[in-house]
C-alpha cells in the first residue's frame, strides 16, 4: 500500500483512479480540468456527489437504489406485483428496465455468491426476498442472475432458500442472441439454445 498522498490535488487524483475505467492518466486529466476550467463545474460535481451519498439508499422492498423509502418501480400501481425478477445489482435492474418489456417487480440481491472472494450468502438480501415471498402475493420468482458459474450458484442458493414456499421459480433463458446467426454461435450457445427450446 502506498502512503496517503499529502496535498488536496493528489488526494483527488488518487480518489479518481479508484473509479472504474479511470487510470492514472485520465485521473490527472480530470483533476487538471476541474482545477483550471470552469469552477462551477467542479462545484456542481461536488454538490451532486454529496447529494447522492446523502439521499440515495436501498429501497425498503426491493433494494433498488432510490431517494424515497420505496422505489419508483415498487410504488407504481401498474406494475404486476405477482412477479418478481431477482437480479445481482441495481445496474442489472436498469438494463432490464431499458429493455422495457418486463412489467413485474424486482429484487436486488446486492451481489453474487462468490465464496472465493469471501462474499457469502449472508451478504445477499436473499432472506428479505424469502420474507417477501412468504407474504403470499408473489406467484413467480424469475432468477435473472448472470449465467456465470457464480451467477448460477447464486440462483441455486436462492431457489434452495425458496424451495419450501409455493412460489414458481424460473430462470432466464440462455442461448442465441436475436439477430445473430448459428454460424457465429459457439458450442455452448448452441447447447443452451437446444436445451431451452420451446413449442413454436
Amino acid at each position: 500500500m502506498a502512503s496517503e498522498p499529502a496535498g488536496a490535488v493528489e488526494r483527488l487524483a488518487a480518489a479518481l483512479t479508484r473509479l472504474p475505467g479511470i487510470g492514472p492518466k485520465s485521473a490527472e486529466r480530470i483533476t487538471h480540468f476541474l482545477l483550471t476550467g470552469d469552477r462551477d463545474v467542479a462545484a456542481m460535481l461536488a454538490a451532486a456527489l454529496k447529494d447522492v451519498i446523502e439521499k440515495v439508499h436501498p429501497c425498503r422492498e426491493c433494494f433498488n437504489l432510490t431517494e424515497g423509502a420505496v422505489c419508483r418501480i415498487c410504488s407504481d400501481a401498474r406494475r404486476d406485483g405477482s412477479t418478481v425478477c431477482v437480479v445481482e445489482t441495481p445496474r442489472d435492474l436498469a438494463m432490464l428496465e431499458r429493455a422495457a418489456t418486463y412489467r413485474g417487480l424486482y429484487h436486488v440481491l446486492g451481489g453474487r455468491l462468490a465464496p472465493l472472494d469471501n462474499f457469502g450468502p449472508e451478504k445477499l438480501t436473499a432472506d428479505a426476498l424469502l420474507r417477501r415471498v412468504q407474504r403470499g402475493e408473489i406467484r413467480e420468482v424469475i432468477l435473472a442472475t448472470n449465467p456465470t458459474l457464480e451467477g448460477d450458484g447464486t440462483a441455486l442458493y436462492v431457489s434452495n432458500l425458496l424451495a419450501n414456499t409455493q412460489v414458481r421459480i424460473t430462470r432466464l433463458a440462455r442461448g442465441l442472441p436475436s439477430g445473430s446467426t448459428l454460424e457465429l454461435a459457439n458450442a455452448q450457445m448452441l447447447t443452451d439454445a437446444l436445451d431451452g427450446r420451446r413449442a413454436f
Partner: protein
Amino acid sequence: MSLEQATALVVRGSDWSESSRIVTLWTREFGRVRALAKGGRRLKSNFEVALDLLTVCNIVFIRKSSGGLDLLTEAQVEERFTNLRTDLPAFYAGCYVAELLSDLTEDYDPHPALFDEALTTLREFGGLGKLTGLRLLSFELTLLGELGYSPALRGCAVCQKPVEAGSFGATAGGVLCPTCRLKERDARPLSPGAWSTLVALQDDPTQWRRELSDRIRTELRQHLGLYVSTRLGRRPRLLPYLTG
C-alpha cells in the same frame, strides 16, 4: 518472452478494468499461470465466456520472462461443468477445488496427473448427495500427495513408530503415537472408522463410494480442514460451506 499453448482450468478471476480481467489458470502443461486478459470483459466475446470460473479452455499466452503477469491472447472453451450449476454442495465443492489449486500450488510447477484428477473430480460432482464430501476428500488426498504433503497414516508423524488410529495432529502432519500426542497442541482424536477411510482413499482414490455414518464424515471433514489450513497457512475460504 515466448508464446505458449496450454489446456487450462480457470481457478480465479478478478476484474482489472472495465475491459480486462486478471485470471489465475491452472494449466496441464505449466501448472499455475497468472495472466492479464485484455478485452476479457467485452460483451459477447468468446474470450469472456472461456474465462468464467471452472471452465476448461485451450489458451495461448505470452510468457513474460521478467516475472510480471503473463498476457493471455486466446482462450477457447473446451469443457464446462454444468453439474456444478444445478447442485449447491457440488458448486461449493467445485469452488474449493479451485481454491486449493490456486492457493496451494506454485507458479510454473506442473502436475499433469493432478490436472487430470481435478477434471475427473469436477465431472463427478453433482447429484452425489452425501457422497460429495467423500469425493472431495479423495481429491484432497490426491492433491496433497502430488504436492508432497501426504499425511502420515501408518507411522507416527513425529517419531515414525508404527501406529494406526487414536490421534491425529495437523501440524505434525498425520497420526500420532501415545507419547508424541501429548506434545502436539493440536492433536485430536482419530476414530478407527475415519482412519481406515483415510488409508483406503490414500491407497486407492477411486474407492470413495463408501457407506459412512454422518459422525465419521464430519470427523473426516474436520481433520482434513485443519490439515489443509496448516499447509495453506490460513483457513480455506470455502471450508465453512463444506459438509462432511
